[in-house]
């Protein structure tokens, strides 16, 4: 693990510590792959959450294009399910930040703290596009 990855994990853990009721935090690429996550989330569940969160963000983008101001801009997606909440915001280029929290969590605080983190370090939370013609067999 590179030192920047360790710093990112630490910042994600820190986000959970200062935000009551939060359980997991994950940075994912827009095509649905995990980039970094907090220790409480197993790798398998991080993979699952990355795929789910990218799908939700992409559908939300579709809602914005169809029913928003036409720019396709997206602030955050929030899902309230039995037993928890899921928040997703755009991070740096090509990446999203997702947080899972308990159902009694305060959505305003979570959204605020997530956006604050993105403002601070969004430029490091990126997943650049693949090079054109780049084969995965390297």
């Amino acid at each position: 693990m590179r030192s920047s990855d360790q710093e990112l994990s630490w910042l994600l853990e820190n986000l959970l510590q200062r935000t009551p009721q939060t359980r997991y935090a994950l940075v994912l690429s827009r095509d649905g792959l995990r980039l970094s996550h907090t220790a409480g989330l197993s790798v398998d569940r991080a993979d699952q959450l990355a795929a789910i969160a990218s799908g939700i963000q992409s559908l939300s983008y579709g809602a914005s294009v169809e029913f928003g101001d036409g720019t396709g801009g997206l602030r955050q997606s929030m899902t309230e399910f039995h037993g928890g909440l899921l928040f997703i915001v755009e991070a740096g280029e090509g990446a999203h930040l997702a947080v899972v929290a308990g159902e009694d969590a305060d959505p305003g605080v979570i959204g605020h703290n997530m956006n604050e983190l993105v403002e601070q370090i969004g430029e490091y939370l990126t997943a650049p596009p693949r090079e054109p013609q780049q084969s995965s067999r390297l």
Partner: protein
Amino acid sequence: MPLRSSATTGLKIVIVGGFGVGKTTMVKSVSEIRPLSTEETMTRAGIGVDDAQGVEAKSTTTVAFDFGRISLNDELVLYLFGAPGQERFWFLWDRLFSGTLGAVVLVDTRRLADSWYAIDRLEHHGTPFVVAHNQFGEPTHTLDQIRDALDLSGDVPLVACDARRRESSKAVLITLVNHLHALSSARQVTS
């Protein structure tokens, strides 16, 4: 194009197949409404995970599903759902398959094994389907060879298409609707 007031029958159809086979392209080419697309740029995080061998020029991938609509005649309208191809999104398939009357399995002969999972799932769900060979350039295999390679039974229609072309994609969907009609007529005769 607004939905015609004469439309009385809506069929939910899914388009499935492996990663990069042309599912999104087919929904886009054939839809009469602005298609919902959930294509995202493929990032470097996917190198080694999303194998683009054979489709190196591919730069985006579907992360939820595609949606489009086409009226085949005054009464019959198809609602098209394009499934996501990669394994990490397969958990979405059950919901997509719910209420589905039929499916199109798109295959690419360069990556034929990618379609086995889709065919297995459809057979497991008991969802009728047709198989469409999306031809990228000059065909290198005959339909009979593809039928053998996929171990398809003789009663599953297999056709060639160019998913980029509206008329070609529409012909695939008409093949599917005719197949569904034939199956339902056969059931009525036997019951």
